[in-house]
């Protein structure tokens, strides 16, 4: 991964008001996550788990916080009130500060957008430079029937006198944690 792509990604996220942490180890990532979720009283849905490292990470987190629930596309229990959710995006885009999720159910969508706070955990190796690089990659998901969601910063509106206010519908607070993980 080119360091300037990563630097740009972090800069863009910061411009968007996203709190970003680059973690040098899984322990550090876990520590950050624990700090963030320790005071959360409601269940914490987790979406987008794909590999063993992510599974282990969530298992470790579960030990500290019993509220963690893993959401799959076919989960059939409605969500209770939720304050915070965690997700593993498929990719990031540095030039726009975007993370991209895939989903194929309303419950995954609700997990991503309903809470006040969302935390994205993404491997540094999954950051692309710009939107053009998604050609082809996206088709494989869309053809399979999976929807793709791009998130670029917190939910915002400027509908009243042009003043930018965060959190009108989707998450108001948005965190991104970067770690050394899976390759693309």
């Amino acid at each position, binding site marked *: 991964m080119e360091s300037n792509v990563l630097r740009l990604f972090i800069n863009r996220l910061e411009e968007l008001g996203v709190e970003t942490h680059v973690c040098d180890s899984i322990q550090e990532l876990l520590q950050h996550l624990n700090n963030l979720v320790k005071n959360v009283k409601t269940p914490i849905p987790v979406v987008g788990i794909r590999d063993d490292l992510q599974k282990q990470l969530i298992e470790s987190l579960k030990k500290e916080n019993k509220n963690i629930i893993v959401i799959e596309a076919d989960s059939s229990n409605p969500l209770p009130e939720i304050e915070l959710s965690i997700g593993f995006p498929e990719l990031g885009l540095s030039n726009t500060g975007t993370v991209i999720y895939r989903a194929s159910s*309303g*419950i995954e*969508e609700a997990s991503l957008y309903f809470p006040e706070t969302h935390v994205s955990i993404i491997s540094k190796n999954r950051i692309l430079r710009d939107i053009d690089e998604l050609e082809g990659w996206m088709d494989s998901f869309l053809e399979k029937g999976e929807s793709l969601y791009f998130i*670029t910063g917190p939910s915002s509106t400027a509908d009243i006198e042009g003043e930018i206010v965060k959190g009108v*519908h989707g998450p108001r607070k948005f965190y991104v944690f970067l770690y050394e993980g899976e390759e693309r």
Partner: protein
Amino acid sequence: MSLEKQVLEKLSLFKDNWPMLKNNLRIRERKEKVISEIAPEILREVRKIKEESIENLEKNLKRLEKVLEGRGAELKIAKDRDEASRIVLDLCKQYGVKLVVKSKSLTTEEIELNKVLESNGIEVIETDLGERIVQLAGQKPSHILGPAFHMTRNEVAEIFTKYYGRPIPPDPQQIVLEVRKEFREKYQRAGMAITGANFIIAENGATVLVTNEGNDRLALAFAPIHVVIAGLEKIVSSTRDVLKILKILPRNATGQRLSSYVSFHIPTMNAYPSDGVRKLRKTIYILIDNGRLQASKDREIREVLYCIRCASCLQVCPPYNMLGGHVFGYIYSGPMGIPWTMIAHGLDKTYFSQLCNTCGLCREACPLDINLPYINSIVKERYGKTYGYPSINKMLKRYESFITFASKTPNLSNKLLNSSSIRKIMEKLIGLDSRRPLPRLAEKNLGEIFTETGSPDKGKITLFTDSLIYYMNPDWAVKAVKILSSLGYKVILPSLKSSGMPLIQYGFMDDARRIAEYNVKKLYELAKEGYIIVSLEPTAQECLTNYYPKLLENHESKTVAEKSYGFFEFLKKIGWSELNKILKNLNGVHIVYHLPCHSRSKDGSIVVKEFLEALGARVYFKRIGCCGLAGTWGMKKNGYGYDISVEIGRYLVGEYEKLGGEFIVTECSVCLLQFQHLSTMPSRHPLQLVQLRSDE
């Protein structure tokens, strides 16, 4: 209420506050940096994508139909507004839907869906904050991206105070919190989510939605039924096409590199398991024709179907910024609203098109280079031919005869035109506002004082002036000729008609075509003899390069366009260093430069600013936009032009006066008239400022 009364009412409401303008200026400021990141080739590529999408509309529709069938989604085509609303109502009845959550969709505004659903007892919640505000206020959106841009925070707070039945402070943060809280319950309870679509992809059936609030996501997350309502022109061929368009849409719409939420929804989602049972979400696509197919075959206006709804044209439109979409619009508003109203609601609803002053900034701002000023003149023509042209415009159509007649006795004419009683009569008979100072006729017009001059060492030039320079300021043309001959050019002044811009402006296209034919014929012959065409007025140049080729669509007009330059653009081609040899410097002169709307050099540079700087002047420049006068448009009485024009000019002059500088300088005679009328700062044509060294 008459259009004129609506105009005056809105101007008085917005006076000194300018909410539409200020919101749009904020967006323009944000945009400046991010749109410069996009190479012109990308814009051309996106234009091509849209051209091909409309060209292949029927093929893509068939492809989409097949894909959606395979994915278990329904596709319905509605031929008009009524049919579209009826389909939605039937669906609500079929599935027992009592509450619908809508995510902003201009197309559902077009079909006025809410009225139909609400009159049948179905609760409809607009989930976009701006849309919700206007819904509660019982109004229509005033802007396609900021539906409530016309309201102050106090007005918004009053609306929510009334709605919630308790005091809501005029604080956007607080208001957002209240709405957020309320909507969470609505999302979970809704039986149907209705969204628009920024695009629909034919190859995989994805609905692409672009928002900043995320209301579309939450509406969809919980609803068991998703109805997509979109115009047929929203279908594109591939995901690749959308990725290209996304590079320019958010940048141009809101000044973001990407909007907060962009989603590619595929209609094979598991619905939210609100009852603990897993089942598929039902998705129905309703694609609306409502005039689009006819428009796709209409050569003159077809390109408005390429519009990606970025609202760039609204952001720069001077009359729209003073009035907002309730007056400058029907449901679609602003410059793009004129042809879109004709397509979707009928020609009779385009009466507001006369508020367009044909400044052309909309085309300049449009990332897809849609020729909106020309198309809007075509709409004005069709309206005029069908329902009659406004009588003031019919009078002003004969402007050239008035000037020619008055110029026969310039001293007497000037005296009469200065008399307030004569002006009152003119206001009544012709419609020229008596408060608008008129330019003074020169004692001798350019034709009378011009002598063919210079030797063709470097080349031969034919001048193309317009009425104002020809009759009112011929000495500027004389100085221009001196400069050109000093640089080694022979200059001639052929007998041409004035540019015909007012005819184009008011939609008298047959008359404009006759003028274009006359001028092009003469200029083409001269071009063939090796003459370079140089226009002294930006508007004359705009006619040669933009309007004449559109009006005539022939080889001659295209050749004339290619061979013609604005005067200062031509000087730049020669080189500023050559100019410095023959002109005295302007060291120590502080200038506020105003860029006229029709000054468009081929290389996109701001030529006169460069010219003044090359001569050593200190130039202050702020890109705001049109001066507001726009030829005879701002001379029309009251709400027909004058009052809007003065309001546009007042804001601009106020900003210019803050910049410092001794003069406002601009190369357009019309803009100068506006500044002379509204500013305490003196204003000058660049040719009034410069002096030839040989004159020492």
